[in-house]
């Protein structure tokens, strides 16, 4: 049992991997590293600093497919908002039926020394429980996404370098390799495909500690909502065990002015 980091984490992806058109992740051609352009760190900074909506609501459908093509589908309603010093999120399960109504709330703080506050509500117990935890869990809800994959990693934590140019779906990209400065990070390195025309990413490869390709993340669909580029469909493929997790967002709404009072135990017991 570890961290109940049930942030609307998937939406954190948006800052990093927003794109203008539905893109099929295809690579073609391979150019030499750019010269005279912006530095790799500057590119990653601009991606990190992209504008984000202050609140979002969405319905998330998560489909997990194992190597034998067996599917598990879960759907959740989710709510998230930023309130200056804290980001607050609630997720509530819609299906499968036996977990319907189960909800999770997370408050994370700008002050990184302060650990997240978390609560769970299990309808069968009819009680909200406070969860305190030390570390971060490996996997987001048992999917192929880890919390690390979904969170926004500050560019300062890695050393970046442009290792090539590539085209994905007709879009010119920089291929940037990022190596962690701290060896405790779950990956030995990541390689990201970042658009040359906008501060957005298309694809990312994750390498394990033995420097073997572990997972590939691709963006399958996006949508512009109130001027924000939102990913509506994405897939993480663990190439080592051939597991896939597809996330798709529907009923996506942004900047609805969600009140802070909504992020409370009462909301969890009542349901979203």
């Amino acid at each position, binding site marked *: 049992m570890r961290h109940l980091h049930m942030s609307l984490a998937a939406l954190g992806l948006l800052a990093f991997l927003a794109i203008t058109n539905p893109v099929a992740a295809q690579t073609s051609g391979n150019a030499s590293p750019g010269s005279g352009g912006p530095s790799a760190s500057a590119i990653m900074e601009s991606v990190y600093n992209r504008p984000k909506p202050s609140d979002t609501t969405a319905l998330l459908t998560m489909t997990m497919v194992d190597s034998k093509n*067996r599917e598990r589908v879960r759907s959740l309603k989710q709510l998230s908002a930023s309130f200056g010093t804290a980001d607050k999120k609630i997720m509530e399960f819609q299906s499968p039926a036996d977990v319907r109504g*189960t909800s999770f709330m997370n408050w994370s703080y700008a002050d990184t020394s302060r650990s997240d506050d978390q609560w769970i509500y299990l309808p069968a117990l009819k009680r909200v429980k406070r969860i*305190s935890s030390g570390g971060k869990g490996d996997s987001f809800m048992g999917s192929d996404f880890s919390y690390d994959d979904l969170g926004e990693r500050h560019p300062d934590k890695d050393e970046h370098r442009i290792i090539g140019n590539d085209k994905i779906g007709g879009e010119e990209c920089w291929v940037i390799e990022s190596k962690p400065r701290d060896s405790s990070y779950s990956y030995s390195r990541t390689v990201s495909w970042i658009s040359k025309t906008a501060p957005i990413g298309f694809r990312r490869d994750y390498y394990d500690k*033995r420097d073997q390709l572990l997972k590939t993340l691709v963006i399958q669909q996006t949508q512009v909502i109130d001027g924000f580029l939102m990913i509506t469909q994405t897939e993480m493929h663990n190439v080592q065990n051939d597991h896939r997790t597809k996330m798709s967002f529907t009923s996506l709404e942004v900047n609805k002015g969600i009140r802070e009072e909504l992020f409370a135990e009462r909301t969890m017991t009542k349901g979203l």
Partner: protein
Amino acid sequence: MLAVAGITILAGISLFSSFRMETNLDEYMPKTHPAFIYSEEANERFLIKDSILIAVEHPDSIYNPETLGKLIEIEEALHSIEELADSRLQSIHSADNIVGSEEGLDIRRFYVSAPTSQDEADEIRDAVRKNTMIAGRIVSADERTALIVVELPESGFSNKLYDKIMGLSKQFSGPEILHVAGRPIVEGTLAILGPKDMGRTGPLVILVIAIVLLLVLKQLRRTLITLAVVIASTIWAFGLMTALGVPLYSVSIMIPVMLIAIGVAYAIHLYNQIDFFAKGNPGADRLEIAVNAISVIGKPALFAALTTVAGFISLVSSQVYPVKYFGLFTAFGVAASWLLTMILVPSGIVLWGNGKPPAVSRREINGSIPFGARFADAISAHKSLVYVLTGFVLLLSLWGISRVWINTSFLDNFEQSSPIVQTDAFVNRYFGGTSSVNIILDSDKPDTFKQPEVLALMDSMQSSVMKLENVGDSQSLINYLKRMHFSMNAEDPAYDAIPGSSDIIAQYLLLYEMSGDPDNLWKVVDADFRGANVTVQLKSDDSRTINRVIDKAKEYADDFAEKGITINFAGSGYKSLIFSNLILSGQISSLGLSVLIVFLLVAFMFRSALLGAIASIPVLISMVINFGIMGILNIPLTTSTALISSIAVGIGVDYAIHFIAHYREHLRKTGDEAVAARFSMSHTGRAVLLNAAIVISGFMVMVFSVFPPNRQVGLLVSLNMLTAFLATVTIMFLVLRKSSTILKERK
């Protein structure tokens, strides 16, 4: 001769260029067997992997800043080993502690960095004591030993990895003692000791055989020729083995001893005839002597070789690969030594002469004739005593056979006092057990294992299995659910039970999946909850322990069937059990096959079914005695001891073949039953006695093996040779005499 030398050199090159020992037990198993296929699938479904266990023992208590810090250092060192970079580790450092209270749930590691004071170490101790998932499982009850469980990577275990882990354990020793255990380590130790053992018994058997040959043949030249034959045939066999890419299995360690001990027999019989002929025909030249020896001994020696080959070949019917290969390559080696004997011994005579007829030998032969004859007369005079004694021994043996048991324990390959057995015993004393068997439950319906009544049945099966002898621990979905229920209800002992509704179970599991390490969950249940895995840890890997668990679990099969659930088994312990049944069935089929082949060969050779049957008497008797002794002395049937009787049939019948051949020949020549009896007993009896003595002395060398099963094989084969020899010159001799009239008529 040049050709022989050339082939030997080629085989030797092949041998030294690509030689490897196979110690991965899975490679010993037939991969197409349904039980193995199921077990492999289950291993994949539930992430069942072999683990290495590192036990860190402190003289007083592990709860001090240094030892707790050392656990972190060891884990880091393990992860820095390339093969283990992604391995899952389990220890009090890496495990999570879940503490429930009225308000909520606290989930955090017992400690992340090394404690800086004794007070901090004491806090860790108090936290561990309260957690039943951890205390007694990865820290011993007396708090002196902490366990680090290292899951092996897919790439498996190698000698290199073994060395690295052993080096690491040395590096971190003091004041703590590091014990390294687990099946992979046992296999790794075998890989190192196996070739060493062969390197020791191989030369020793050559030395012993050389001395015995010198004593028997009384000539350096003959001794050297005979030794050259058996050494060359051994090299041929191993050369062929490596050329075909067949690795060395633990039973193959016995091949050199077998070939050297068996291979000298043909030369003994040839030289016996050469001396006999030279004595009777002082003027005969070299060629005459050689031609006579071949014409007299050639046929019985050929059939003796054929029956021995048949005995080994019958092992090919076994489904167990090491046994199959052992049979095949030893058979090849025996055939090679027969061929080489028939080429080298006569050509040696032709090239270098017969040497000085040993004067001592003559006197001995002269001296032994009366003895052999007297013995023949004595046996004939006390027929009923022989029959009664034989009957008594057989009855006693039959009682012994009823006590024979099968053991597939891999650890029993080692001495009780060896470090590997001691470490294993240490870990078993303080923890759940170094061996395991998995009980796999399957249903067609998704979410079956969220139903409280299904889980209650599982719980009751698990607890009754836990009560069995040598069962140390067990893990299943039940453990997780009870712990979650307990923690979510403020650690009220009333909630240390299976929750009452499938919804609450589903929600607990979702909570676990979201917040914990879901891989822990997928080790005990399928993601769609159609299947569940109960891991039972055992303190012994012998078949009796595993069988008890399986029998107990099967008692619940009907109750599970009512709920549409089937019960199956998996894991290395279970595979060992299936393996033991294969050994037994292989044993019976190859034994039957070898007796049949031997009977047919002898019957064909003598053109007489009756003589075929008579020749089978000594081997049948020695076979019964063999199993009887195994039962009486509590020697279990193992991959090694299972080989004995088919081999013994093949070798043991040789005495009967030589004896019958000479008896019949002399009977036909002289027509006098008593004369033929005396002659065959004194002339052939002597050769057969020497033959048996040499084989026995060769096999006795295996008593110096570091592996107890190999020692047992050495003793048992020696015993078989002795009983086969005794049976040949006593009871078979009597039956043969009784059939004399028929033999004469058939002329």
